[in-house]
């Protein structure tokens, strides 16, 4: 390419300044790496500091109370309905989303012909890049109608005696929010699971086939088992998205507050912590109890996300390593 003398010169230079340059780079990299932790600590500290007035005012009732009254002089805030709303909608999302995602991943890796595999993988990954407000918009104008006509009305007609199917189906409810979340986490879980399954060595499959296993048995006993920690990580990432998702949920969940937001039935409007903040943060005046409450909700959401991620990490490193030994 260029004159052979140049690289030599550079090496000489590098050797000359090796200690300072290396150290500088090390310091620089450490600062950048530390900034991630520092940002987390600052966020947590700000939320904790801001939420202290509300927590002091309401005590444990802040976390376990159901009342939500913003009227001046009657102010009382309890956030239990929104904690439960977050858990229930994310749970529905996982219940629907995980089997579908695994189905997509298994199909793409184990069954799809090569000509289909690449374009379909691309499409799945593209779906992960769609902004959540677009899912919300599609949800409110398209999905909602389908849900009411084909899912909720029949369910409430024939299974209405089961408490979770009671109430009037209207499409802006916990069920619709859970379904839109499921759709939103499928691309994340499916594309990551696909990577995990692709990483399973072919020797494992060949070995299994050679002892006479059917395709189903190979997938179930060997491939999924080999990749389970990776799949678990993918599911947790999906759960993380579901717990924190705001826009699409706000548009579809019906935004109830107070005791009526306690999730009793799938066909009632509810509220998650994220949608609660999205709905109300704008009018919370500086220094007000309401602002402190919203910060408290934010803190709870942050802690919940941390628990999910740390817990998942612990499960992965402890349980799977001991049992499977096949860590991706």
């Amino acid at each position, binding site marked *: 390419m260029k004159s052979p003398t140049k690289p030599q010169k550079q090496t000489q230079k590098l050797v000359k300044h090796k200690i300072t340059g290396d150290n500088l780079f090390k310091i620089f990299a450490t600062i950048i790496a530390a900034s991630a932790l520092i940002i987390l600590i600052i966020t947590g500290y700000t939320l904790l500091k801001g939420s202290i007035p509300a927590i002091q005012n309401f005590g444990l009732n802040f976390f376990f109370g159901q*009342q*939500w*009254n*913003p*009227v*001046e002089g*009657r102010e009382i805030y309890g956030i239990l309905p929104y904690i439960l709303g977050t858990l229930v909608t994310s749970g529905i999302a996982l219940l629907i989303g995980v089997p579908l995602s695994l189905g997509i991943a298994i199909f793409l890796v184990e069954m799809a012909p090569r000509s289909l595999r690449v374009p379909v993988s691309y499409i799945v990954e593209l779906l992960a890049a769609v902004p959540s407000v677009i899912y919300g918009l599609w949800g*409110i104008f398209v999905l*909602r109608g389908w849900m009411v006509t084909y899912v909720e009305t029949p369910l409430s007609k024939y299974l209405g005696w089961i408490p979770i199917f009671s*109430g*009037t189906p*209207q*499409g*802006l409810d916990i069920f619709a929010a859970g379904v839109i979340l499921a759709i939103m986490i499928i691309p994340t879980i499916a594309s990551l699971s696909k990577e995990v399954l692709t990483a399973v060595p072919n020797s494992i499959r060949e070995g299994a086939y050679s002892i006479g296993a059917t395709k189903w048995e190979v997938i179930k006993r060997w491939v999924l088992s080999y990749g389970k920690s990776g799949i678990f990580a993918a599911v947790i990432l999906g759960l993380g998205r579901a717990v924190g998702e705001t826009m699409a949920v*706000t548009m579809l969940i*019906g*935004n*109830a*507050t*107070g*005791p*009526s937001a306690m999730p009793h039935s799938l066909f*009632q*409007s509810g509220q998650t912590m994220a949608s609660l903040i999205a*709905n*109300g943060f*704008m*009018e*919370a*005046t*500086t220094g007000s109890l309401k602002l402190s409450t919203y910060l408290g909700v934010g803190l709870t959401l942050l802690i919940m996300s941390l628990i999910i991620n740390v817990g998942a990490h612990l499960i992965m490193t402890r349980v799977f390593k001991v049992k499977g030994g096949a860590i991706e």
Partner: protein
Amino acid sequence: MVTKYAALAIILITLLSGAFIGVTYSLSSKAVMLNSTGASFPYPLIDKIITEYNKVEPYVQVNYQPSGSGAGITALADKTIFFAGSDAPLSKTEKEKAPNTLHIPETVGSIAIAYNITGVPSGLKLTGQIIADIFEGKITLWNDPVITKINPDIVLPAEAIITVHRSESSGTTFVFTNYLSIESASWKNNVGQSKTVAWPPANDIASNGNTGVAQIITSTPYSIGYVELAYTLQANMTIAAIQNPYGNYVIPTLESTAIAAQSVALEGLPAGDADWSGVNLLNTKDANAYPIVSFSYILVYQELNVIPGMTQERAVALIEFLWYVIHDGQQLANSLHYTQLPDNVVEINAETIKLITFNGQTITTIL
């Protein structure tokens, strides 16, 4: 090679964004920006007035975000905007956070009770007490005897009522709950009046903004909710006739709204710098008036130098714009289904605008 292209792309992007910033900077240095936020209730009208005003004064750029009255008042107290829109006058605690604020009624609006009952295209009659009981979850079916009794001509279905209300802090909610507190003792004691309340457990859905509530009512059979009249007329929604204190069932129209505003204006309004927290246009003293009517206010500080970044030039532009809103801007109201301010309210407003000062000096260039 790849790195070469990447470097080229980065240089190109930097240059482009630089040029973009340059262009916006040169534009903004010529234009006077007036930022504001608040009630969504008058937004279609304000938006139209801003567009028309821009033809008269092209160098003034007014920006109004319909974020809700609550958010408007918060922004006013934080002094991040030049004026706020609110359907509710400042409460006592809000007045402490934004002292020396002037109230300028910019338009009059009615809150329509919109409903969506399959098979009932029009003609539903309701009373304030019934509406309160529906939103309190005491009346749960459309064919409740209390409703059928005053609607003998309509066959109402045995379907559950779904109530729709605002999810954010809203002046429309303030006026609506204020009305229900007057009509129902139970509502007053259990819920009260505010820009956002503790909604009683009912079969309810909440949504953001007048458009959000209107959208949900039109798409949800057997629902009922409260929406600013202009939005219901634009969306062709079915609206109920409400009984006023004279026993008449009145449909909200521009006329029945104007009648309410005139009758209150005749009784007398406070000065612009006085306390407006007691002013309402509910259940006014005229047999033909619609009972749920409200002013929508522009809130602005009397002394403009409290706002960071305020200059003489901006203060003048702001006052000229406000003057336009209460005079020429009113001509645009009827075509957008808003009611023009009665003449005596315009006179009070003109006096209020003359009170505005910058660095202690009244701005009299145009007044």
